């Protein structure tokens, strides 16, 4: 046989000469909608950021300078600072596919401890702050231990802890408020996060700066450290994570302890915000933090979402609340719209998830 014959099909293959010779390949859907879906999948904080910008523009257009003043815009930051701290804590737990209903109660108990240790026992404020953090960390550890080692569902564990911590708070404090003026005189450190920096009309409290810093640091830790990636892996699939060598129990406990510590930090910042120490403060912090997390596009099924989204989510709520108040609508409309936002956010999350499957 000569060369030419080799390249020619044999007689019985002759019918194939006209057929398609390309190898197997997947067709790519490149519709516009699909590319959006994919973009959102890889940048989970994008939707809340766009909603935030849109709401700023809309309220700015309606209200003009009253809304777009440095004073008002920084006021929104001040009003969401506490939710930001608690939301950061909540984000960690929700990324592990858990939920923490006790965050607000831990926050208040920590702030009450900080106050009582200074005022009831006359110990220095630095020590009181430390005790507040120990209490928060301890509550977090109990949550983490019950979830990771005893394997109880996080919802149930933290539902129980919420009640226990809140009752402890009321029993221990006898529901007595410590007045702002007393704190200012004897333990000014407790109001540290209420200190403010003024630049023109803008007012930034240390609490706001610390909250933004905490979110940025956690964003770095979650995206760029081994521990952070492990947290995501556990939320996505704990068994697979375990098989891949992640110490699931230890990591889960550490997540809850850090959550507790962040709540204590929120409790400290709360004293700066309201001046006094009130055992009845922060009653809805758990719901508000979950709202911020959900509107921020963080998946309640775990393993996906950006902590920056939580901050945007909290800010969206802040912009809506203040904007609608300024327009002069009944405050109920704020709740109605926020409820709508929550449902839309989760619907978008479900839609984005389809890319993965």
């Amino acid at each position, binding site marked *: 046989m000569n060369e030419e014959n080799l390249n020619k099909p044999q007689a019985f293959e002759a019918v194939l000469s006209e057929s398609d010779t390309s190898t197997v390949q997947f067709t790519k859907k490149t519709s516009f909608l699909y590319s959006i879906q994919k973009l959102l999948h890889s940048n989970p904080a994008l939707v809340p950021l766009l909603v935030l910008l849109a709401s700023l523009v809309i309220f700015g257009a309606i209200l003009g300078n*009253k809304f777009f003043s440095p*004073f*008002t815009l920084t*006021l929104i930051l*001040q*009003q969401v600072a506490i939710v930001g701290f608690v939301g950061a804590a909540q984000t960690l737990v929700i990324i592990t596919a858990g939920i923490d209903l006790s965050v607000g109660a831990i926050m208040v108990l920590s702030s009450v401890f900080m106050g009582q240790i200074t005022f009831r026992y006359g110990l220095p404020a630095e020590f009181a702050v430390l005790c507040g953090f120990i209490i928060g960390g301890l509550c977090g550890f109990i949550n983490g231990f019950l979830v990771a080692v005893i394997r109880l569902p996080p919802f149930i564990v933290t539902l129980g802890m919420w009640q226990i911590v809140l009752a402890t708070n*009321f029993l221990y404090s*006898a*529901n*007595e*408020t410590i*007045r*702002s*003026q007393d704190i200012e005189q004897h333990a000014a450190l407790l109001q540290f996060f*209420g200190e*403010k920096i003024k630049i023109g009309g803008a*007012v930034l*409290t240390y609490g706001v700066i610390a909250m933004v810093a905490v979110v940025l640091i956690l964003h770095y830790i979650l995206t760029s450290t081994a521990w952070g990636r492990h947290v995501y892996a556990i939320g996505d699939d704990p068994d697979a994570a375990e098989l891949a060598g992640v110490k699931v129990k230890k990591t889960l406990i550490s997540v809850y302890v850090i959550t507790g510590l962040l709540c204590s930090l929120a409790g400290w910042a*709360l004293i700066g*915000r*309201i*001046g*006094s120490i*009130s*055992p*009845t*403060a*922060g009653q809805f912090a758990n719901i508000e933090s979950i709202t911020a997390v959900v509107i921020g596009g963080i998946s309640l099924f775990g393993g996906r979402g950006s902590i920056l989204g939580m901050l945007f989510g909290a800010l969206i709520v802040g912009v809506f609340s*203040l904007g609608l*108040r*300024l327009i*002069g609508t*009944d*405050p*109920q409309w704020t709740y109605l719209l926020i409820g709508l936002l929550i449902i839309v956010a989760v619907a978008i999350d479900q839609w984005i998830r389809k890319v993965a499957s």
Partner: protein
Amino acid sequence: MKKTLVTSALSAIVLCGSSITQAETGACLITKTDTNPFFVKMKEGANAKAKELGVSLKSYAGKIDGDSESQVAAIETCIADGAKGILITASDTKGIVPAVQQARDAGLLVIALDTPLEPIDAADATFATDNFLAGELIGKWAAASLGGAAKHAKIAMLDLAVSQPSVGVLRDQGFLQGFGIDLGDPNKWGDETDSRIIGHDVTAGNEEGGRKAMENLLVRDPAINVVYTINEPAAAGAYEALKAVDRQDDVLIVSVDGGCPGVQNIQDGIIGATSQQYPLLMASKGIEAIAAWAKDGTKPEPTEGKNFFDTGVSLITDKPAEGVDSIDTKQGLDLCWG
């Protein structure tokens, strides 16, 4: 074994016997929560009076403000327990009425403390603060303190809740009437047309809400110079918001309640004046009424010209204004609660 049985049987008989001889008047105190200092003081007053009169008092409370189920269960317990009367601060003033009726049908005297039921005659009597008067006093004081400047006042109204519970409406409208502002419909706030009112916002009656509401209204008009607050924690929160913009010294804050931290805040110049109410008195008068009812069936009479028994209210300030009676903070601290 036999010996143990005999002794326990004996002691059981003795116990029964003693409980029969102790067939003293039973009374129940049901509060919204047992955490609010206002109710803590109420309980204190009731306990002291009950001890004095030999009434056996049992206290119940809802888990949170608004928890009506626990209160209904408490009323049922009191009926089953054979109590002679119930003192109640109802969480749900309409919803509790059928349970209250059940108790009255069973022969118990039911007295509403602090919060009237709806309708008010659903209870045998109501011992409460005149909240409209409480508001009116601070309104008059604010107007008198400002003098001529009252005509150009810019007023922020820091209320309780958007659902406009009656206590919040009465204090709010009382303040406006005292200040000399046309009320519109006195059964709700927010329908006034006077341009001196910058706006109403809600505080939930705590520091956090007070600060936020004050901030919101300051955005609306930074020149606000009179602040009405539903209670002293809300006033403390409003003060923090004013301090953040360095306005704390040129704004007049008034409030209602008369809790000890609130009276101290007047002493320190944070709040200008407050109307003090007397929860301890409500409760001790209530126990007296139940004891009288158990003894000879007399029912308490309402204060003349009002459909409830007024337990009184006093204006507390260290800067008395002409034409408005007041007591100073020293006296106020002796009478304060919480």
